[in-house]
């Protein structure tokens, strides 16, 4: 009961933000970016947190979705919504195909092959000037067309789009995790050989979650470039993929709220603390090491523990 009240309160708060923060567009900016970082993180959380697949090339799939949508919108005149769907499907397909190759390898090899594919995809984004416009970036990416009088140009309006995307991603995560599909993923993470002995076709499930994770990355990618109005390879580098891992782990791998907490901290904390960018990342790096050593459930785990302590 308490959980449901809290959830309702949170939902109301989130919806009311533009009204509450009308004088501080800055807050909206931070929240939008949080949503945009959280969406791919949900995908990676399903892969890494729940299934144990450490992908070091995740953001490359965000790039696949982003550039697919960019080309369709700018070069082929598609509407935002159709391009979004195509982008998500495109990254899902790329995830399925590349995942099929990566999943042939175990543990260490898997991680490195995902890293390799991520770098190769980045290389294509950076060098295929004819299609992606190369390193300079792909400008002119539109916001969705106005619905009647209501345009997506203003920050507060785009906020609802980003929030909608994030809610869709978290809903997908919730459905996946609560279902028997989710149970199998968690079993695979704990002991794949045992799961297979119990009748689980490991390859099938891992491929499915790889494709789903990539699709979510694509969703985040399309929204991100629509927000920035430009698609740049710099958004989809190895460093960004590592940031995604950071967000998932710090937030709490394998928890439902983890991606949201991680994204909030990643985007919001440095703005709040107002420290130089380099020191921020030093702190994050140290935080990552400390969390791995002492608090594997990340912020979500720490908060849950604090909540239990308070109630006791």
């Amino acid at each position: 009961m308490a959980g449901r009240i809290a959830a309702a309160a949170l939902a109301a708060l989130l919806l009311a933000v533009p009204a509450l923060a009308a004088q501080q567009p800055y807050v909206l900016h931070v929240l939008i970016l949080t949503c945009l970082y959280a969406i791919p993180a949900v995908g990676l959380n399903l892969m890494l947190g729940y299934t144990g697949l450490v992908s070091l090339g995740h953001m490359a799939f965000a790039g696949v979705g982003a550039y697919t949508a960019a080309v369709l919108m700018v070069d082929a005149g598609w509407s935002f919504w159709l391009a979004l769907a195509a982008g998500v499907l495109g990254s899902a397909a790329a995830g399925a195909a590349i995942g099929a190759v990566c999943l042939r390898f175990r543990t260490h090899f898997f991680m490195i092959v995902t890293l390799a594919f991520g770098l190769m995809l980045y290389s294509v984004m950076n060098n295929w000037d004819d299609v992606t416009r190369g390193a300079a970036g792909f400008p002119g990416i539109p916001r969705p067309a106005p619905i009647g009088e209501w345009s997506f140009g203003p920050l507060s309006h785009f906020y609802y789009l980003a929030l909608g995307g994030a809610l869709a991603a978290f809903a997908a995560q919730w459905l996946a995790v609560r279902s028997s599909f989710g149970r199998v993923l968690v079993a695979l993470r704990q002991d794949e050989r045992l799961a297979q002995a119990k009748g689980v076709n490991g390859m099938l499930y891992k491929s499915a979650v790889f494709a789903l994770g990539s699709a979510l990355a694509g969703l985040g990618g399309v929204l991100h470039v629509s927000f920035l109005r430009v698609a740049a390879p710099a958004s989809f580098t190895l460093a960004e993929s590592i940031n995604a891992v950071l967000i998932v782990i710090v937030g709490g791998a394998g928890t439902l709220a983890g991606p949201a907490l991680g994204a909030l901290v990643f985007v919001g904390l440095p703005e709040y603390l107002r420290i130089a960018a380099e020191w921020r990342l030093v702190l994050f790096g140290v935080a990552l090491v400390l969390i791995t050593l002492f608090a594997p459930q990340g912020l979500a785990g720490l908060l849950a523990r604090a909540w239990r302590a308070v109630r006791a």
Partner: protein
Amino acid sequence: MSLLAVEGLAKRYGGVAALAGCHLAFERPGVYGLIGPNGAGKTTLFDVVTGIVEPDAGRVRIDGRDVTGWPAYRLAAAGVARSFQECRVFPEFTCLENLLFRARAPESEARRLLRLVNLEKYAGEPAASLSFGERRLLEIVGTFMARPRILLLDEPAAGVNPALFEVLQRFIRTMYDERPLLFLIVEHNMEFIMALASEIVVMHQGAVLERGAPHAVQASPRVLEAYLG
């Protein structure tokens, strides 16, 4: 048509022949012990029959159907279940969740089985919190939840406190009486297996050396030589 048959199985690991011309057939359900000195090929035989490794040569048949090379999950669907030498359970799942994973029997059955081995008080506890012997019991109990036709237990008594032996033996006998299936049990603990099995198969150097009633096998000079020589 045999329930389970292996014909001419061969498997090499590097320079070592784990299985060499292994022939074995079981016509009907029963509790069979599989013994033999270290390196005789017992676990490899299990690995082949449960789809963990593919044999270099030979066939595996279930009810006459060729299942050679089938992956583990497919064999599990066909009614083959096993426990592992190193004892595998899902450490984060509770005992109940472990039992209900991909189970073909309902929760009431899971609880009943837990009661039979005195583990029902741990039903809601993560499997990792159990002692090794309790985890072993949980693992073996779990294999029944899939209602298998062929159940392979790889050294079920290993590492288990002798006080729990009787619980385990009683459980296996109870399950067999309720629903006869083909039990194949690898064991080094002679006391444990001789009391349980109706027939003993002795493996040596990758093939079947001898097969018969427990007392006959124990008295066999060939078997003695295999262990000592």
